[in-house]
């Protein structure tokens, strides 16, 4: 379905921490179209500075009591000027929300397992993917790493869906009674890969590029497929500007630099070239 551009009213902006907030937008037309892993291009309506929109994964598809889609939310982390502005938005403010955009994840089904690997704000695309996988009863695990325990969010949400949680923190701190492994999220992932059964697992990853590279290479080493969502500076999100290119092995047009906004952001981890 073609993307739409909605002047969406802010329904809520829940600050999860000093840097993170969940921004809920009244954009049902975007919500109904969205598939897990797709993104939206966002900017406060009418604001000319910053000039360009910014890309954000769709975090949740929002529904009312009757189950009708009312909008989408994004998990916003302050990184610079726009994300700071979005963090400060209040209900009633209006945001231009263009989407959904990009290539979504490919959900797998049992007996194959689904392993979602999230680093920091890389959690964002996995809320919707988890719902899809849970709906098809695919055995799903979330490997989720953060700097500290207080930056691990929405754990209840994933548990309620029956997702197995494997948490890591760099300082080894624990999250609200839940055990966290000290170190990188790739440590428990590799242990799991070593023990993966014959039905195999699909490894989904989103987070810092070094993590994506490590995950893709691990999956390959243990002969498991992977899909990783990359992050590039994006000027348009529609294939117009060629700012967002990533190197892929057998990339179709343009030798092997392809536009991650329309050929991604989700790529087969085995296809990407890691420089």
């Amino acid at each position, binding site marked *: 379905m073609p993307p739409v551009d909605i002047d969406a009213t802010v329904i809520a902006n829940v600050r999860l921490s000093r840097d993170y907030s969940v921004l809920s937008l009244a954009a049902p037309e975007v919500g109904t179209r969205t598939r897990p892993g797709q993104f939206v291009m966002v900017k406060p309506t009418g604001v*000319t500075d910053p000039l360009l929109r910014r890309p954000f994964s769709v975090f949740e598809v929002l529904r009312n009591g009757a189950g009708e889609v009312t909008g989408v939310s994004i998990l916003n982390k302050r990184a610079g000027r726009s994300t700071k502005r979005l963090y400060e938005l209040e209900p009633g403010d209006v945001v231009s929300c263009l989407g959904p955009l990009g290539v979504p994840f490919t959900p797998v089904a049992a007996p194959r397992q689904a392993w979602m690997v999230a680093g920091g704000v890389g959690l964002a695309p996995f809320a919707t993917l988890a719902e899809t996988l849970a709906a098809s009863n695919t055995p799903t695990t979330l490997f989720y790493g953060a700097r500290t325990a207080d930056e691990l969010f929405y754990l209840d949400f994933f548990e309620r869906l029956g997702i197995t949680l494997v948490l890591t923190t760099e300082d080894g701190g624990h999250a609200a009674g839940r055990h966290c492994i000290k170190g990188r999220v790739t440590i428990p992932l590799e242990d799991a890969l070593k023990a993966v059964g014959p039905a195999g697992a699909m490894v989904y990853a989103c987070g810092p590029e070094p993590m994506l590279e490590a995950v893709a290479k691990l999956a390959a080493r243990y002969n498991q497929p992977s899909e990783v969502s990359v992050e*590039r*500076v994006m000027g*348009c999100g529609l294939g117009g500007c*060629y700012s*967002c290119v*990533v190197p892929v092995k057998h990339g179709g047009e*343009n030798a092997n630099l392809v536009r991650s906004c*329309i050929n991604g952001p989700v790529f087969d981890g085995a296809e990407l070239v890691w420089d």
Partner: protein
Amino acid sequence: MATPDLSVAIGSLTLPNPLIAASGCFGYGLEYEHVVDLAALGGVVSKGLFMKERQGHPPPRIVETPAGMINAIGLQGIGVHRFVKEKLPLLNAAGARTFVNVCGTTLDEYVEVCKVLSDAEGVAAIELNISCPNIKEGGIQFGCSLEGTYGVVNAVKKATHLPVIPKLTPNVTDVASFAKAAEDAGADAISLVNTFLAMAIDVETRRPKITNVLGGLSGPAIRPIAVRMVWECYNLVKIPVIGMGGITDARDVIEFMLAGSTAVQIGTQNFVDPFVWTKVLDGLADYMTRHNIAKISDLIGAFDPTPPKATHA
């Protein structure tokens, strides 16, 4: 009042309206088929094309600046042959009026690319990119010398029956003299401005914001300079001027037309709002109704230098 007539003529070419998608800001056009009716645009300019495919520069390729952006894509492109084979038929099917932005590292390459396009079906015109600031051999060496400009336009005109529209760089002392050189060489129209050579530094790392260090500045920031340059060219040459640089809405389009633009191109704003086209078309119709203007072409160069009032009240 009857529905306003938005059509404009660029030499033999008649466009239903003056809005053209700027090169490099609209992919190959087809990327936008699902958000805008390509036939409803005055025209679509392709990404810059050489004979062969090009990789372009490594990312990051863009950075935002006050009311603008710097880009150094490096003319990544699929080459003219694949364009003619894979893109052009679909653009024609979509009813687009396709302008092809032609690049070259040598005069011969410009000529060769234009020959390929002349033999192809359904190219509306050639926009000769002699003004890309982002690559050493991006034609800027033609665009920054009057002889070079005259020479490449003259050579290309001999090689093709298609309308030839050299695209001028603003990075020169006297842009109008380049417009004149292009006209003397037989150009059917000129387009300006390409981007302003610019640079931005990350002070925390002391490194460039984009890999190529230097890039081209576009967006609203440059509009006042671009309008001035269009006005200077309009006053010196007789061929149509296609103006661009920071256009965001109908007001901006009209400003460029009053300054002497027959048609305009929109680039950066298409990133900000891919639905800009219908909004601007509505805005133009509204302006014409309010000011009781039947034909938008009546606005071309209709700027009145009479001083304004000193106080608004």
